[in-house]
């Protein structure tokens, strides 16, 4: 590989995408107006669960400004298939109901679409939608996932005779022996509540008919996948469907989806022969863009008296909502490769259970499974440290996988690529003086000021991913996860890079240009990066899971290398040198040792497009190469974070005083962009930890249906973040890079919670479930101080709600639920699910390696993979 001579990689270059965005010239979906375009508004269910008795559209149809109104019955023939869920783990059946863009028969959550009104004006279609009269026969709503699993619970889907969607498990090492060997076992129940992606740009879609073809403009993270899925749903070949993601105003996973509205605008455009636009209101974002998290985690950690970990067991109940969206059932499991964190744990046993409730589906939101995993391992490590009366950082250090132990294969058979966990923690403590903090903390407490510090030493898995590990014969996703790039050199020597990723704020126009420029010997200013259009460039899998740089960027590097190789052949022929004697120096291919003999890319491009006689006939004209790159492994970024929080014990208000992070995502391509990703990621976690929660009440009504009640943090709530990095290259790709888009979000919630618990330690508070709102903090203090008897608990909304982790679930935030044990294995442990509901009996298999088939290849022979289960 030759990348010398430019050195754009590693520089904090200003972004190429910014000029249009700071001047109002960017083009998001709602900015697009097409000739003859109509607008659509959707009639949505106000009921959480009901039968549709009748729909009267006559009032809407009577309006002059309405072109058409359609119900689910009207469009039944327009869809060849419903919205799919693409996880089909070998041997496990996942209850997956039909999922049509407009509902027929029953509605299953507030916001479920039942009809669509199309008209000439943005405002009038909303008026008309209010004239559609739907008669509903309400049915009992299921809101609490634990209650939903109880016998006799109302059912979201009667045909499955259970609210359990599936069970899945994975085991490595001997969990029973590990727990038996432990001197101390701690158990902890942690609730990781439901949150929203909440990009500031709501979703939007425009369907446009063109002859027998259709174009979809959509605010999506996955244009190619969307085309693949939608062409199937509509029964049209992919060459007749173009999907364009123009500028996309953030996604955070919420736009890693194929949504009903995308299919609808295409069908409407086709039927009406005119472009149709639908723009999501913020309320629709809260009701009908997928949510994230919503798990209840029962964690057991075993350790020797000296802190050496012996076993880790996680039983995870995931509230999936009413329907299976693209990856709904899989997201809770996605964190499994790093369940166990950055620690050497000889036995790990994981069990997952999905549950239907009358809410919108959960799916990927920034971090997607890994924030939950980090949250429970880090906070349970703190619980264990307290039990052992050991410094929590010392407990971590004692169990860290050592720098020299990489590649390290975990008990689950996952191979961590590289790491230096002691190194990032050491660096963190260079920035954060614990001793100084402790003495300051003591002094402040004397003044009645409660400050605490919390730490998180985190590792995540990203760079999705090796297709054989996550594809149909691996974990069972009916997809692959390679990435593509095409590098085209124009006759005058500038370049266009086409990527299959689909950035929406990450800055890949810039970082990919830097990568290509170094390999092409040209200025990144002369490299244009094209993405988000299925008509341009090869198929690609999109942007999510912190994969774009480590998979898509590597594809760009490889395509540019191929171009360089061909350029060398052309140059060598013209300079009468051997290609292997050429090197790229200062933007020129030159003969090693003869700097005067060389050609620029512009000169070579000219020769490639208008070949001189000297060029041998066996060199094809043109200068354009494509690379498809499927990584051999995931990548595993890591780091150490410290948070200092102050709690006003009178009001319960939490303020963050200081936030310090040291992260390692391999060598930096553009350090400025890395810092930006870390800042945003931490802020997202601060939102979850302190402010944000999607709340449904006991009737399944969405309480947080706008930004009035779903509280995104503002600049005033986010502290200045002190960021630093170490650079440990990954051996997986030639750039050595790992992902960073989700790192801050994955890392930060446990540090924040731990800081609040540390602050309140003197008051006897040992646990509060997120979000750490003033009310929850006050309740925790009162309960720790022995006040507050029984009776219904107040909530943020001032009434008892059925959202789990709060009042009605009987699992209030301040009720400690750990059942620490001195004598070993799993006392107080609930029995694993027995699969009696007809799903895979993951819990009934023996721990260890007999539970499932040895996966071919990726996980290694002695490892287990998704349990075959005992499905009848």
């Amino acid at each position, binding site marked *: 590989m030759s990348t010398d001579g430019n050195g754009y990689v590693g520089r904090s270059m*200003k*972004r190429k*995408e*910014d*000029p*249009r*965005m*700071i*001047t*109002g*010239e*960017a*083009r*998001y979906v*709602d*900015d697009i*107006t097409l000739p003859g375009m109509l607008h659509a508004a959707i009639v949505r269910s106000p009921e959480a669960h009901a039968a549709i008795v009748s729909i009267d559209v006559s009032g809407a149809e009577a309006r002059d400004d309405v072109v058409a109104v359609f119900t689910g019955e009207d469009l039944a023939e327009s869809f060849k298939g419903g919205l799919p869920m693409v996880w089909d783990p070998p041997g496990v059946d996942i209850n997956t109901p039909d999922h049509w863009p407009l509902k027929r028969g029953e509605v299953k959550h507030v916001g479920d679409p039942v009809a669509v009104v199309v008209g000439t004006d*943005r*405002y009038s279609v909303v008026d008309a939608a209010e004239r559609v009269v739907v008669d509903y026969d309400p049915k009992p709503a299921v809101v609490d996932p634990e209650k939903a699993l109880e016998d006799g619970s109302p059912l979201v889907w009667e045909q499955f005779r259970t609210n359990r969607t599936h069970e899945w498990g994975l085991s490595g090492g001997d969990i029973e022996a590990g727990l038996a060997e432990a001197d101390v076992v701690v158990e902890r129940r942690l609730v990781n509540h439901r949150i929203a992606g*909440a*990009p*500031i*740009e*709501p979703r939007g879609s425009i369907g446009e008919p063109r002859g027998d073809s259709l174009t979809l403009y959509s605010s999506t993270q996955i244009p190619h996948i969307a085309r693949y899925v939608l062409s199937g749903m509509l029964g049209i070949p992919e060459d007749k469907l173009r999907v364009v993601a123009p*500028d*996309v*105003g*953030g996604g*955070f996973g919420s736009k890693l989806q194929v949504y009903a509205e995308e299919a609808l605008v295409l069908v409407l455009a086709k039927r009406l022969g005119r472009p149709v636009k639908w*723009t999501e*209101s*913020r*309320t629709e974002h809260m009701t009908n863009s997928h949510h994230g998290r919503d798990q209840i985690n029962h964690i057991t950690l075993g350790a020797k008296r000296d802190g050496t970990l012996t076993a880790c067991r996680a039983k995870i109940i995931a509230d999936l909502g009413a329907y299976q969206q693209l990856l709904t059932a899989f997201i809770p499991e996605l964190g499994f490769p790093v369940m166990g964190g950055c620690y050497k744990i000889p036995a790990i046993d994981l069990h997952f259970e999905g549950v239907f409730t009358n809410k919108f589906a959960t799916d990927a939101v920034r971090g997607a499974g890994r924030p939950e995993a980090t949250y429970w391992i880090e906070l349970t490590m703190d619980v264990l440290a307290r039990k052992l009366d050991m410094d929590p950082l010392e407990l971590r250090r004692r169990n860290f996988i050592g720098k020299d132990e990489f590649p390290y294969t975990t008990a689950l058979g996952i191979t961590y690529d590289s790491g230096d966990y002691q190194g990032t923690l050491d660096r963190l403590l260079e920035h954060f003086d614990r001793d100084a903090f402790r003495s300051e903390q003591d002094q402040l407490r004397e003044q009645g000021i409660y400050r605490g510090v919390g730490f998180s030493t985190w590792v995540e898995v990203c760079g999705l991913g090796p297709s054989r590990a996550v594809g149909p014969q691996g974990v069972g996703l009916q997809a692959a996860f390679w990435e593509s790039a095409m590098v085209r050199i124009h006759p005058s020597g500038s370049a266009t890079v086409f990527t299959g990723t689909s950035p*929406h*704020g*990450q*800055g890949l126009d810039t970082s990919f240009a830097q990568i290509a420029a170094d390999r092409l010997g040209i200025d990144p200013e002369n490299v244009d990066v094209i993405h988000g259009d299925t008509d341009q460039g090869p198929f690609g899998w999109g942007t999510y899971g912190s994969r774009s740089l480590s998979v898509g960027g590597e594809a760009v590097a490889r395509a540019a290398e191929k171009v360089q190789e061909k350029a060398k052949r052309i140059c060598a022929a013209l300079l009468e040198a051997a290609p292997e004697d050429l090197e790229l120096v200062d933007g020129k291919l030159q003969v090693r040792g003869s700097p005067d003999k060389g050609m620029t890319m512009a000169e070579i491009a000219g020769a490639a497009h208008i070949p001189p006689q000297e060029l041998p006939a066996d060199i094809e004209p043109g200068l354009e190469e494509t690379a498809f790159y499927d990584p051999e492994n995931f990548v595993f970024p890591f780091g150490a974070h410290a948070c200092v929080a102050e709690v006003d014990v009178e009001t319960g208000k939490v303020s963050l005083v200081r936030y310090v992070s040291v992260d390692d995502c391999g060598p930096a391509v553009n350090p*400025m*962009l890395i*810092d*930006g990703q870390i*800042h*945003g*990621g*931490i*802020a*997202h976690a601060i939102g979850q930890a302190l402010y944000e929660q999607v709340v449904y009440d006991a009737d399944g009504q969405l309480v947080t249906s*706008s*930004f*009035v009640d779903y509280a*995104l943090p*503002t*600049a*005033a709530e*986010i502290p*200045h*973040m002190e960021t630093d990095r170490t650079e440990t290259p990954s051996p997986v790709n030639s750039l050595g890079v790992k992902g960073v888009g989700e790192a*801050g979000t994955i890392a930060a919630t446990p540090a924040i919670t731990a800081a609040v618990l540390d602050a309140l330690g003197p008051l006897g508070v040992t646990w509060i479930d997120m979000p750490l709102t003033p009310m929850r903090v006050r309740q925790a203090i009162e309960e720790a101080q022995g006040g507050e008897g029984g009776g219904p608990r107040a909530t943020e909304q001032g009434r008892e709600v059925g959202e789990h982790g709060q009042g009605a679930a009987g699992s209030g935030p301040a009720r400690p639920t750990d059942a620490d044990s001195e004598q070993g294995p799993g006392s107080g442990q609930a029995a694993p699910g027995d699969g009696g509901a007809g799903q895979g009996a993951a819990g009934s298999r023996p721990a260890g390696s007999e539970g499932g088939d040895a996966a071919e290849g990726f996980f290694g022979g002695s490892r287990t993979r998704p349990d075959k289960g005992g499905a009848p």
Partner: protein
Amino acid sequence: MSDAVGVRVTVNGEAREALVEPRLLLVHFLRDHLGLTGTHVGCDTTNCGACTVHLDGEAVKSCTVLAVQAGGSEVTTIEGMGSESDLHPLQEAFWSEHGLQCGFCTPGMIMAAADLLARNPDPSEEEVRHGLEGNLCRCTGYQNIVKAVMAAAGSGVAR
């Protein structure tokens, strides 16, 4: 739209005139009638500030102002702040300091920041953070937005 009313507004220095529904929001007048799509809609409830413009020199959320209320007034949108070849110092600072990622909140954020600096040309970091409380960003964690506004203040924004 039999009840349409006439509205005359000066937008980015140019006199504009249209017949509109009385209920038409200023943001939709700018976007749909005048094609000035740099002003965005993010929340519908006056929380996010993506629609922030200047109305007679003061920052307002244009999703909470009727077009007819702007009648006779001067409106400045992001398009009126500067162009790619002639950037406003705040635009320049947002670019240099990586004060944007997806760019969707950026026009509103710049308009709010311009108003903040007009009222307080030399703000502390704390004052910037509180001054921008009405504008939400999901990408940046605000750190580089604050940095950009401080940098623009340092360079003297008035021009």
